[in-house]
């Protein structure tokens, strides 16, 4: 049977009664270190034949996805299952949302089942905050509009740490449509938090200068340890938007190709990839690519997030999962 032990002298002040993960801004450096260490333990537990842990038995994790998602929704669901929690996944299509039910009412309906955690993805900024206001569950933001995607940032840190053995001082070049990217927003904050450097590379209208140093020339990626490629969305070229004149010009200038990379660089992408648009297929399939590692990290990190929210304070995870 699992027993939790509190590490003596490692007790933080009592956390607020109900913690959420709405934004990377909610996290301290200690939180990040703790979550990554927890994820590491869970990743090791996933190398065993029996992958299920009894840790969250009897808990209910509800996933509510108002936007399409492969990686995030499947990994949250699997993370909850591997921790023995009950899970329920609700998608906007096929639910009362299609009948015009408001997010508030959907949240109230789900909260009638007393979920311990509500994981929500929604196209509108502030949706997870609304759910946090109207329910008693811990809320995890699985992506709200262009705002935040904190578990993506955590899994990206985890992936970088695993590949390079460090975070502090690592240089990351984020390439592409930063303006419309919640992934980039969360990642920039997370990299700052752990002392990594970041430069934004891409077309000027898509790089908010308030976020980080910006460079327009793709050659700027050569100095980075990690090249983080963002998805380029077609709607950015639509009439009236005109962030870039055409996909053709975008690819010609900013597609990450083998020729534009330096030896030893790692390449990441949050998915889904547009091969041939923002990333050359030869790069996507090369040993430099950490894309599959990111997906794998997603499971361990999301297990860690669920576990962390439902336990209070820093707990010795090795004891909890039985691996030392």
């Amino acid at each position, binding site marked *: 049977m699992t027993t939790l032990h509190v590490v003596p002298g490692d007790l933080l002040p009592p956390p607020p009664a109900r913690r959420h993960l709405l934004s990377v*801004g909610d996290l301290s450096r200690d939180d990040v270190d703790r979550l990554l260490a927890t994820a590491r333990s869970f990743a090791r537990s996933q190398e065993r034949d029996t992958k299920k842990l009894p840790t969250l038995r009897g808990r209910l994790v509800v996933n509510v996805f108002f936007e399409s998602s492969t990686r995030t929704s499947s990994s949250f669901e699997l993370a909850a299952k591997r921790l023995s929690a009950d899970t329920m996944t609700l998608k906007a299509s096929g639910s009362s949302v299609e009948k015009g039910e*408001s*997010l*508030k009412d959907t949240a109230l309906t789900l909260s009638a089942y007393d979920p311990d955690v509500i994981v929500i993805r*929604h196209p*509108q*900024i*502030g*949706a997870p*905050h*609304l759910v946090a206001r*109207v329910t008693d569950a811990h809320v995890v933001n699985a992506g*709200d*509009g*262009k*705002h*935040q995607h904190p578990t993506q940032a955590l899994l990206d840190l985890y992936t970088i740490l695993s590949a390079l053995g460090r975070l502090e001082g690592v240089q990351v070049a984020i390439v592409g449509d930063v303006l*419309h*990217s*919640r992934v980039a*927003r969360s990642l920039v*904050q997370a990299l700052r938090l752990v002392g990594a450097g970041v430069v934004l590379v891409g077309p000027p209208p898509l790089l*908010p*200068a*308030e*976020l980080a140093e910006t460079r327009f020339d793709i050659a700027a990626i050569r100095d980075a340890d990690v090249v983080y490629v963002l998805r380029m969305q077609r709607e950015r070229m639509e009439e*009236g938007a005109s962030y870039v004149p055409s996909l053709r010009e975008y690819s010609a200038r900013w597609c990450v190709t083998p020729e534009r990379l330096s030896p030893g660089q790692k390449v990441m992408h949050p998915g889904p990839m547009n091969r041939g648009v923002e990333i050359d297929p030869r790069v996507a399939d090369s040993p430099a690519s950490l894309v599959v590692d990111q997906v794998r990290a997603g499971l361990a990190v999301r297990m860690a997030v669920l576990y962390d929210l439902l336990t209070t304070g820093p707990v010795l995870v090795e004891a909890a999962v039985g691996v030392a």
Partner: protein
Amino acid sequence: MAPILVGPPGADDLLVRGARVLDPVLGLDAVLDVRVDRGRIAALGERLDANGHRVVEGAGRVLAPAFVDPHVHLRTPGREDEETIASGTAAAAAGGYCAILAMPNTDPVVDATDVLRGLRARALEEAEVPVGFAAAITVGQAGQRLVEMGELADAGAAAFTDDGKPVATAGLLRRALEYSAITDRPLALHCEEPSLTRGGQMHMGRVSAELGLGGWPSLGESLCVARELSLARDTGRRLHLMHLSARESVELLAAARAAGVAATAEATPHHLCLTDEALRSLDPNLKMNPPLRGADDRAALVDALRDGTIGAVATDHAPHAREEKDVPFEEAPFGVIGLETAFAALNTHLVEPGLLRLETLLERMSAGPARSFGLPEPRIEVGAPANLVLLDLAAAWRVRAERFRSRSANSWLLGSTLRGQVLLTVAAGRIAYEA
């Protein structure tokens, strides 16, 4: 021509005993008794005979000219679930207002005399304080054809405005300015360049970049302000700039006024008290148009209010149904209510920290807005109609949804504690509110 303000007839008798009587325009600041006979100020002095009137104790309190709000959305006709003439004017009375101007962006739009006459008739029946109704500049606020300004002015239109959006083109605004010379009513302008503000959810700057919310840049306002001021100069007509938010706009206005352009302007309590940093909470009650801007913009607004470049505080009281604001930030409509909290918010955030003198605030909430719209200025002098507000500056109170007289509760101040309470409002000679 019809009078601009319509409201309940009143001729109350009253004696306010021993208040600090403060009329910034008259330079009056003394502890006095003020007696109101049949709705008019009849005597100012010490130890006045009550003449059998009701006596209100004023010791330790401030008695000032009641407030005038030139920018209120009464949502009537069309959205009476959000506000009515009765509820909106009751909120105004509770906020210390003796007169308000209602905006015409209703459903239907106030763009014809029959709509205007209907509203004025209803106001006569149900308003708690006198209210004036602004008419649209263009039919349906569609930015195509001018309304019949002459007829509407004769029927009592208080001003002309397409508030909620800018007048579509410079050419149309030029015609409107020229033609409005047949009336004595000002044009009030919402300054926004739509091609720069499309998709905008908040001020464009560091905070919007970090939050990922669509940016509504300062230039989206100031570019349009420059257009309006150029047209005012060119036509020699006066105009009023609504809810200014950006430093650049204020600087353009100051320069134009110095050059003799007859432009007046207003600022809202929320723009005077808050900055875009507050948006990090993603509270839908912090979403308004124009958006909250940076600290430097806020400082420019306060400076302009102090030196009179901005002569009026206007609440832009914009009620929204609870279900419309109880949604994710991005989905929420723009606008917040403000009538019942304006004085207390500004007293707490500007006067108490020493950013603005009490006398200046009182002037900008009363005589200033009245002057901008050619309305009678509330005065505390013998013979004047009684338009009075009794204030307890030291009273601290908590803003709670259930206390609002407004039908809506979309206030950015919910849950906060303010200092400065309205105890009594006398509007056009009638006691309209008592705490």
